[in-house]
């Protein structure tokens, strides 16, 4: 499953993994914003942005090929719209839809593959994103692994009984959904009990702040300057 692989990548060690999540987030936003404001037909700019992202992947020592192909998941959707725009006589926009969406997906994938999600959320919290949302996302991500595994098992069980060709009947799917729901609901109850048993006092403890070094500063400045440079030259 995609999230399991991404999670595993994010726990690796590299120069890129070691950078402060806030700086990486800023660099990501700079790259995407620069490309989003670049006029559609500037192919050279697109190549330069791509090179920046690729440099990031190499610095993070991540498998380039897998990242490239995983980011391509966005292409079917973009390609549909691109085709329509091409036929409607706007080839420049058609190409822009493709490269901009792909570049964004690729750089986001790079970001989460070199930043554990907990750190990314912490960086967002530092950016004043409401802590309620951060906590919900944190729990969501934690139990996404557990519950999607459960869903996977149920799907397998259904496939075994159906003879392998299809997953469920409509009623079967509804029943599976309800079982998954009831289990999730009681799991939430179990978590609440486990929290209370360890003295939960009504507020979640604040997370430790990430540490910022001068290398992070240099990296951030360089990344943002590079993105801005390409944007200005374009």
């Amino acid at each position: 499953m995609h999230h399991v692989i991404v999670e595993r990548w994010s726990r690796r060690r590299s120069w890129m993994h070691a950078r402060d999540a806030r700086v990486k987030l800023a660099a990501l936003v700079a790259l995407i914003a620069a490309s989003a404001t670049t006029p559609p037909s500037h192919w050279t700019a697109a190549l330069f942005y791509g090179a920046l992202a690729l440099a990031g992947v190499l610095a993070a020592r991540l498998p380039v090929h897998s990242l490239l192909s995983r980011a391509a998941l966005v292409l079917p959707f973009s390609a549909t719209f691109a085709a329509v725009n091409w036929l409607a006589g706007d080839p420049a926009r058609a190409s822009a839809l493709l490269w901009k969406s792909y570049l964004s997906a690729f750089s986001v994938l790079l970001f989460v593959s070199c930043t554990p999600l907990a750190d990314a959320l912490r960086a967002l919290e530092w950016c004043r994103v409401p802590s309620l949302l951060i906590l919900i996302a944190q729990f969501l991500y934690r139990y996404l692994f557990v519950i999607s595994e459960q869903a996977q098992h149920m799907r397998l069980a259904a496939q075994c009984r159906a003879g392998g060709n299809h997953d469920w009947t409509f009623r079967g799917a509804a029943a599976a959904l309800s079982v998954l729901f009831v289990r999730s609901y009681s799991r939430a109850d179990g978590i609440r009990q486990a929290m209370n048993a360890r003295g939960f006092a009504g507020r979640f403890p604040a997370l430790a702040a990430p540490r910022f070094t001068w290398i992070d500063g240099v990296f951030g400045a360089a990344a943002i300057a590079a993105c801005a440079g390409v944007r200005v030259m374009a």
Partner: protein
Amino acid sequence: MHIPDGFLTPPVWATLDFAGLASVSLLARKARAEVDESRIPLLGVMGAFVFAAQMINFPVGLGTSGHLVGGALLAFILGPAAAAMVMTAILAIQALVFQDGGILALGPNVLNMAFAGVFAGYLPVHFLGGRSRRAALFAGAFLSVMVSALMALSELLISGVRMPAGALWISLALFAVSALLEGVITVAAVEAIGRLQPSWVKSRGGGMRAPALAIIALTAVFLASVGITFASASPDGLEKLIERAGPAGRNLFAAPLAEYQWQGLGGEWMGKAAAGVLGVGFVFVLCIGFARLARSKK
């Protein structure tokens, strides 16, 4: 429908990101007041549930299948403010971990699906509630998907993404089908949950019974969305609207972004974008307004 990056033009995503951020912090404060902190794990787990539920395929014949989107179901389970927060968290994780929907497009996606979608899904449950639960859930789920999709479509059209009439009709038909499917799946899921835990389902939903008000509210939200979609598809009408708003209004939107010129469209496009964004904002305010009305009556 998750909009990727690169589809919306800068004024559109910038405006909607700003609106999205503002609404998130407002709603977060509201949800904080309503939700006890010890219930936060429940919200997260419900989000994970909706995520995982998308792995369960519902066959709909012709070799195709659909899956739950979950806006209306979450609203039914958790109430609108908390559900909107959970949906926002889902969208954020989808954008970050699954590259489903863009980063700059996160604001628009949150407005479309987490706010408009959840509130549109909640309205019928609140107004019809109680005995007509099936109908309410169905209407809510249908509306939730339809309103989100129409808003997304409008935003694309405002951004100048070309959609010839044929393609537009095909997408509308597809939206309608997936909205119907969402309705059926949501009802089937809640019925199935009701068989497992009857008391739990009975205790939810049904704030007040005001079918007439409900129908007016739903029609209004729905028509506004459809209207905006078609308005954004035919820029001439919008142009006139902007002309009427006068040069002041036009400059207000165009000036700070004057440097950014879309090829061949120039300032004309600015006006179109401004009107469209206003329109989308209008549907959004409408949804929130009805939700607030509903709460005050309670």
